[in-house]
């Protein structure tokens, strides 16, 4: 493998890893802070991709579509939390698994009613459609760099929000000791609603950003959901930092596995997970 090829694979693996991180961060936050297992997280990713398809057609611009879609997804997250998830924070994990599994069916069918079962494409905006030439016949698309850029900006934003702001402090306090936080006069219900909405918005934005290169198709959420589970398990449930490192690791193993060992590439990520579990049963960064 020459240098240009290697560079392309590394960029691809980082881009995939960052995309997984956007999804896994929401999943791990929702679990770490509210104690809820959310199987429907992949559905938010799918929702994002379909929103990008519809809104970019409506506004004529993917950037506007992403901004509008992000706002919509926050509203959607708040509504869903208020109506359903709030009542399941104290329930058994088993009930949560089933509730969110039922939601997958519901979202999937609503998607089919609203958008049909066809595969759609989302055009890459003109100003991002160029490619950077690396050698005579190899080049790297700017859009993929843009995707990584969006993910990095959001990851930094999330880090600052959680570790540097007053709201972040309340979120961490709520995760650490819910009752104590509440008795200090902090509105923990509001904090939970905000965290849930952030998680939904991250997954939806990931879906919207990914739509132009992955295209938009039914059931696109379920495969990515399982990858997110792997990331969360490797990173340690509830740890955002762990999710970042695990996501990059999974991206690397998956991308290079497909190039170097194509016969077993589908299994490599799970072998990685098994190895981590043998070494640290609670993930790399258990809090």
């Amino acid at each position, binding site marked *: 493998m020459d240098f240009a090829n290697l560079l392309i694979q590394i960029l691809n693996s980082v881009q995939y890893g960052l995309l997984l991180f956007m999804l896994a961060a929401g999943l791990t936050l929702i679990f770490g802070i509210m104690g809820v297992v959310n199987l429907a997280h992949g559905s938010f990713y799918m929702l994002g991709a379909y929103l990008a398809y519809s809104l970019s057609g409506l506004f004529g611009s993917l950037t506007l579509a992403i901004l509008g879609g992000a706002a919509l997804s926050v509203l959607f997250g708040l509504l869903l939390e208020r109506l359903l998830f709030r009542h399941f924070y104290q329930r058994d*994990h088993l009930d949560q698994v089933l509730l969110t599994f039922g939601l997958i069916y*519901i979202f999937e069918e609503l998607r089919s009613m609203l958008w049909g079962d066809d595969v759609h494409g989302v055009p890459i905006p003109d100003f991002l459609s160029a490619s950077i030439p690396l050698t005579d016949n190899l080049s790297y698309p700017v859009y993929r760099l843009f995707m990584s850029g969006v993910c990095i900006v959001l990851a930094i934003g999330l880090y600052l929000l959680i570790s540097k702001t007053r709201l972040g402090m309340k979120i961490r306090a709520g995760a650490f000791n819910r009752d104590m936080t509440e008795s200090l006069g902090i509105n923990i219900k509001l904090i939970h609603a905000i965290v849930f909405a952030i998680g939904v918005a991250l997954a939806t934005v990931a879906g919207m950003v990914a739509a132009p290169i992955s295209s938009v198709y039914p059931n696109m959420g379920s495969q990515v959901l399982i990858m997110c589970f792997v990331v969360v398990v490797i990173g340690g449930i509830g740890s955002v930092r762990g999710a970042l490192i695990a996501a990059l690791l999974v991206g690397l193993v998956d991308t290079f596995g497909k190039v170097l060992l194509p016969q077993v590439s589908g299994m490599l990520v799970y072998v990685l997970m098994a190895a981590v*579990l043998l070494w640290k049963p609670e993930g790399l960064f258990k809090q």
Partner: protein
Amino acid sequence: MSSPKANLEALPRSVQFVLALGAVALLAFPFVGTDFYTQMVTRMMILGIFAMSLDLLQGVTGLVSLGHAAYFGLAGYVLAFVTPQGEAVSLWWTLPAAVLASGLAALVIGFFVVRTHGIYFIMVTMAFAQMIFYLFFDNKALGGSDGLYINFKPDATVFDLENKRVFYYFTLACLAGVYAFLRRLLWSPFGRALAGIRVNEHRMRAMGFGTFGYKLTAFTLAGALAGLAGYLWGAQTGFVNPELMGFHMSAHAIMMVILGGMGNFAGAIVGAFTFEYVLHAVKDLPAIGAFNTGKHWQLWMGLFIVGVVVLAPRGLLGLVERFLNRKEGRDE
């Protein structure tokens, strides 16, 4: 994970009576039902075995596996691999081989997963099942995404499984056998230790139980019994595909156990029958005007699942018990 109260281990008289009626109905069914329904009930009984095997983990030991379908599907694939194109194979060695293969897979995967707890266990069982799913899905040599056909039902020499009624009674015998075995197991010292692990694993360890070994044994046994169900499924439908090992199949099994009521195996059977019937019913819904309600079965199924979780967390047997007790007077 699940609180001890959510389980209904000892079945009250009223529930036993309802179950006995059900057993009689199952015995008589092939003489009144059409071929179509006989096959459907056979399928329900197979799923009943599958659901019971999961109940050993979920209801008895408190381990919620979201990847149980892997062991179910694996045994079906074993049957597909050993059945040649042009002739039937003997039931008497292929059935044990398939069950053994599933048990072995569960033993190896169990070695990793039973170290984990709670939510980790759910995620890790799901991830491993998905690994097996993609192994079969991606490899053309293993059937790929299309799956494999099984042209002949296994040959049992003394009876003919190609006959739908014979197959029905063979499945019923398996169902009854597995039920009797698991009920016996539930009240054995081993079963009591598993129940102890569900209620408080730390205390069990403090009392000197090697909980890792107990959980691994339960996981392996559950995998092997799921394999029995998967073998029957493969033989009955004559077809296996990766969907049998998929995430939806695993979640359906959890749903069946919840729906009937956990921890007593009878609930798992009731749940499997009900779930499969509801699934069949919603797919058959008539069109109302331009709106094809049957085509949107996933919506109804989703609402049904959410409804059960919200309204009947103790399952149908719990409801029956509550209803009958209320009728008899203020027993509770």
